[in-house]
């Protein structure tokens, strides 16, 4: 199946950048040196990243290799519907601006490093914190696996099959490199690598969206060709939305935007900033990456216009790169995408490790950890998480990781009431939030399963059917249960569990 032939120039360029980044990953341990036997140093980079570093870190973290391949793949397959990623990334930053500085402030004040830490301190409920931690770890595992899937796609497009070393070997090498520098340098490694990777990505995308349309006769011609391809294909495809796609498009965008910063990798990168204004500045400047994502999505249309014919949509952009660029630049582009897998995979494994160590191991197994022990456990868990993802990619069908990632998004949304509402009010009671979480998780999983693991469920109302993102439906159920159960919980137990935070913990500290 791997139609691509191995090109030694492309391979040489690719290996060069990979090696460069590997060295950087290890050097990172000495960058802004801190005591890496402290979890907040290893797992949050000492909360010292300024606006500029945070911009690269979050950009490299949120716009993952899988995103870079899956979004144009969806556009290649169905057209306009795949662009829900655009309103999604528009909605997300106002939400970040209004919520994340509060989370940063309160976590800094109390030395918390995860959202579950915050939930435990705010509601005094270890059970609710455990629910938040489990949700984060569960949703992150398949996401890491998908980054490795992204790597696989790149390797396939480069024709690594022709090397005769088997499909697993390059993945294994990349994995070992990633695991080792994450272990030794913690969050500093992806932060430093993100500089190189993002610079390469901007070059790749700008070259692609300028050069390829010129070859194809301009954007007008690209869209005309795409429209023709969709007309031949039929079904719910096209360069603008079909009416029955309006609701799925809007609700997917909104639900995904609510979910994004609940993911542990997003929380981890946010909390590693050096202050609330750093986060606000990033909410202003991160949309530059959204423009990039929109341009990447357009590559799906260019692949159609260039008559790229692939069975697996994931191969559309890699095949387009091979067809449009000389080998040395193709190698550069592939290195950019592959490094785009390593940065988020590192941060995700750190985020999951922070959660596991703090909110599962320390809370339930051994509450008398020294700081050094805590940091060591987190390092080992980050290895374990990545190893699990590697096994999943090697031995389970890819569809398994994709389906779990879809469920992960639905699950992630269910901690919204506890975490985001908790930043503003404590009116909802912990037991009620826990019941709501259970309801949301159950309903979301059941609906997704019932739909054959598709994200949208058709809700009938007044004789019409509206396709709604299942994550949002489950969140509504979650809220209803939490709101109804709160007065009941208050009747059963008049005094709520103790809240360790105070109103001014959420506000920016006044400089003294």
């Amino acid at each position: 199946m791997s139609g691509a032939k191995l090109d030694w120039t492309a391979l040489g360029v690719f290996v060069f950048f990979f090696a460069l980044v590997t060295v950087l990953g290890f050097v990172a341990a000495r960058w802004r040196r801190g005591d890496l036997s402290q979890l907040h140093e290893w797992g949050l980079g000492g909360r010292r990243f300024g606006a500029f570093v945070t911009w690269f870190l979050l950009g490299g973290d949120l716009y993952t290799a899988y995103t870079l391949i899956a979004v144009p793949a969806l556009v290649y397959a169905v057209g306009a519907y795949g662009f829900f990623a655009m309103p999604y990334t528009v909605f997300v930053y106002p939400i970040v601006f209004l919520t994340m500085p509060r989370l940063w402030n309160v976590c800094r004040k109390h030395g918390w490093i995860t959202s579950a830490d915050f939930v435990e301190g705010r509601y005094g409920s270890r059970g609710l914190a455990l629910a938040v931690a489990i949700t984060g770890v569960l949703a992150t595992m398949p996401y890491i696996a998908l980054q490795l899937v992204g790597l696989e796609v790149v390797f396939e497009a480069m024709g690594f099959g022709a090397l005769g070393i088997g499909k697993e070997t390059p993945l294994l090498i990349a994995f070992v490199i990633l695991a080792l520098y994450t272990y030794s340098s913690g969050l500093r490694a992806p932060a430093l690598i993100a500089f190189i990777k993002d610079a390469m990505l901007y070059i790749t995308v700008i070259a692609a969206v300028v050069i390829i349309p010129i070859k194809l006769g301009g954007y007008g011609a690209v869209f005309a060709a795409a429209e023709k391809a969709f007309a031949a294909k039929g079904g719910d495809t096209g360069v603008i939305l079909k009416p029955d796609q309006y609701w799925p498009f809007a609700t997917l965008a909104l639900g995904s935007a609510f979910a994004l910063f609940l993911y542990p990798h997003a929380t981890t990168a946010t909390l590693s900033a050096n202050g609330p204004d750093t986060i606000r500045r990033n909410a202003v400047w991160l949309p530059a990456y959204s423009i990039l994502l929109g341009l990447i999505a357009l590559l799906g249309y260019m692949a159609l216009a260039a008559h790229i014919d692939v069975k697996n949509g994931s191969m559309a952009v890699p095949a387009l790169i091979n067809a449009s660029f000389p080998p040395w630049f193709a190698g550069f582009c592939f290195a950019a995408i592959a490094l785009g897998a390593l940065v988020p995979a590192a941060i995700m494994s750190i985020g999951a490790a922070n959660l596991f160590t703090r909110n599962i191991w320390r809370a339930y197994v051994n509450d008398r950890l020294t700081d050094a022990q805590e940091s060591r456990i987190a390092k080992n868990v980050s290895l374990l998480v990545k190893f699990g993802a590697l096994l999943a990619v090697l031995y389970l069908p890819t569809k398994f990781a994709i389906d779990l990632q879809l469920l992960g998004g639905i699950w992630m949304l269910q901690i919204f009431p506890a975490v985001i509402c908790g930043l503003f009010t404590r009116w909802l009671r912990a037991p009620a939030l826990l019941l709501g979480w259970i309801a949301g998780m159950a309903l979301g999983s059941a609906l997704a399963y019932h739909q054959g693991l598709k994200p949208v469920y058709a809700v009938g109302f007044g004789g019409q059917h509206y396709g709604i993102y299942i994550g949002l439906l489950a969140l509504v159920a979650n809220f209803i249960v939490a709101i109804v159960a709160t007065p009941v919980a208050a009747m059963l137990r008049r005094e709520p569990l103790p809240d360790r935070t105070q109103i001014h913990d959420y506000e920016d500290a006044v400089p003294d």
Partner: protein
Amino acid sequence: MRRSRRWLPLILLIPFVALLWPPFYNRIDPTIAGLPFFYAWQFAWIAITAVLTWIVFRGRRA
């Protein structure tokens, strides 16, 4: 001064109004630099939202 600006974060709702109802912008014409309106509108709102966020950010410090 500070008190009178408390409404300012509400301008962050505008992008939601502009993008949550697709029939509003789900059209090919007018095309802008070859981009159908559907895409041009969405790209524009990435930039406009960034500006609105910046305005709210500046407003906090006034």
